């Protein structure tokens, strides 16, 4: 009797603690993003972030040992947001495959737009420093990558089932992931008005790509 009643509040407590932790993480990210947008990724100090988030600097390190960890968490949240957005967009889900894929990249870029410099710095660091936690081959990224690939794979599988494209399998999702990354880099470097060049490039590539798949098959 006693033990049972003992355990219940403890579980509740734990749940609460987990929730609090998640809230703090989000608060830190919000504060950091604001600072990144103002001062840039490199020039923002951990001290400034902790001050803005209203926590001790030591606490910040408990949550995010480095700024890269913060970036990782950010990308994690972004992926969740895009997947969540897609699942609530009934119109997009009825659209053609090129439009679906276009909308996914565009939505993610649109969300990233306020943090352009931060994203640029993070992606650059990831690509140029193989040891970086942000590197695409870093283990810490794998779980997120897999979740992304599963998300894309499912969309491609629907298109396969509907006869929109031939079987492209896992490799198709992987290829799209690389395309997504390439578009992200293009977007970062795009100096056209409202970054419209990226929109045009994405649209043409996806339409031609879908066309090639449909007409020529996967084997080249």
């Amino acid at each position: 009797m006693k033990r049972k009643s003992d355990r219940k509040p403890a579980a509740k407590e734990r749940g609460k603690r987990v929730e609090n932790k998640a809230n703090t993480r989000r608060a830190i990210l919000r504060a950091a993003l604001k600072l990144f947008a103002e001062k840039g990724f490199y020039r923002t100090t951990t001290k400034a972030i902790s001050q803005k988030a209203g926590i001790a600097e030591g606490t910040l390190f408990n949550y995010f040992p480095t700024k890269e960890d913060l970036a990782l968490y950010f990308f994690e949240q972004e992926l969740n947001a895009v997947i969540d957005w897609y699942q609530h967009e009934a119109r997009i889900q009825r659209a053609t495959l090129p439009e679906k894929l276009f909308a996914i990249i565009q939505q993610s870029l649109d969300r990233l737009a306020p943090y352009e410099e931060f994203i640029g710095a993070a992606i650059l660091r990831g690509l140029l420093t193989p040891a970086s936690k942000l590197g695409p081959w870093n283990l810490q990224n794998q779980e997120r990558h897999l979740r992304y690939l599963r998300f894309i794979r499912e969309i491609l599988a629907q298109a396969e089932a509907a006869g929109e494209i031939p079987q492209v399998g896992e490799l198709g999702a992987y290829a799209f992931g690389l395309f997504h990354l390439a578009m992200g880099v293009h977007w970062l470097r795009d100096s056209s008005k409202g970054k419209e060049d990226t929109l045009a490039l994405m649209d043409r590539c996806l339409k031609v790509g879908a066309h090639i798949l449909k007409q020529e098959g996967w084997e080249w």
Partner: protein
Amino acid sequence: MVNSNARNGTLRRGFHLGKLGFNLVGSYLGYQAQNVFLGEAERPLRQARFQRRVSQRAREELGNLKGPAMKLGQLVSMGGGILSLEALEELMNLQMRAPGMHASLARAQFKSTLGKYPEELFREFDPEPFAAASLGQVHRGITRNGEKVAIKIQYPAIRTAIENDFKLLRALTLPTRITGHIPAALLAEVERGMLEETDYLHEAQNVEFFRRELRALTYLSIPRVYHEWSGDRVLTMSFIEGESLREFLGREPGAELRDLVGNRLAEMYYTQLHRLKALHADQQPGNFLFRADGSIGLVDFGCVKRLHLDMSEVLTSIIHRSWQQGEVETRRLLGLLAGPQMPYRRARKLLPLLEDTANFLFPQGPATNPTVDFRAPALIKLAESNSKQLFRDRIYPPEFAFVSRAEAGLCHLLRELGAHVNIAAIWSRITAGGCTGTEGTEWTHGITNRKSQI
């Protein structure tokens, strides 16, 4: 064997696709090429037959599409080559077309231009376009105040694509520009014209110019620009109600209504020539909207031609057949039309053509009915052969060729309507400064005239 053949075919097609892909966003002509290719793909055809045909069609169509560019290339390469006015004219009149946009792209381009998604600015935004427009497409929307609007959205990066094409063209035409066979200024003028069409802010000015200058024609609706929701690649205008010519004719309107509309179309056209000294340069039926009460809507002002040639004087001379009044008058008219550079003897080739035009549009003589029946088959033939001959003999200033093509567009509309129009009466009323606009009372008058004469 079969397999390797198939592989071969795939490779070959891949090569073509590669070539297409090369021009992915860099070239306007490249867009055109891809449109043909992608357009074909959307048709449901059996796979094998389809693949064979696609590669063949793509080659053919690419050949066609390259027409103007290829023609330029040929002309340039002909040694001391003359890049003729025709080639440039042709380029200038290339139907400006852009690839279609799905809703996600249209919304993204809207935000890229105005900083917000359409749903954030309008109460309603229809993700499906209802019309194609020069270089983009038009969507329906409803403002927060409940006003219906037409939102024109341009395909992204089209301006860069056209600029790239002209960079290439300038490189190609370098020799001719050095020899002076083609003035650099001319090329620049063509480029400016095409680029102008990509700037919707400029189009907004055009719309307002026409709306202001043609306001006396009360039967005519021209959209109002909403500047707060317009930019260089998005143009928001009031929605103009009306039916296409085909829909309108499908209701089998009576002769009176068709004549009324025909007279109004002619009045619109000649008012532009005389008063505005500018022309809505796209006189194709799709830009006119018709209503059962005889009122007319005019849309799409992407291409507007400001005239330097005094068409009022030219037309008045044509009506009075000034060439019959001696050498001096003839020289004066031809000088106006052909400019001082053209030798008089060559310019005289214009005379039979002017005579024909005068006889059809402004019939003369005591026993003649001045009202023109636009269903007469000879008329459209005349309009067509006129512009063809002008083109072939190069006996025109480009501007006159332009006007005559616009006139052919008007004739086409009037013929479709089967309207009877007294062009001479309309012209003299416009030049006399009498502006009708008062709900077409004078038209009724014109129609009564015709009836009494029959």
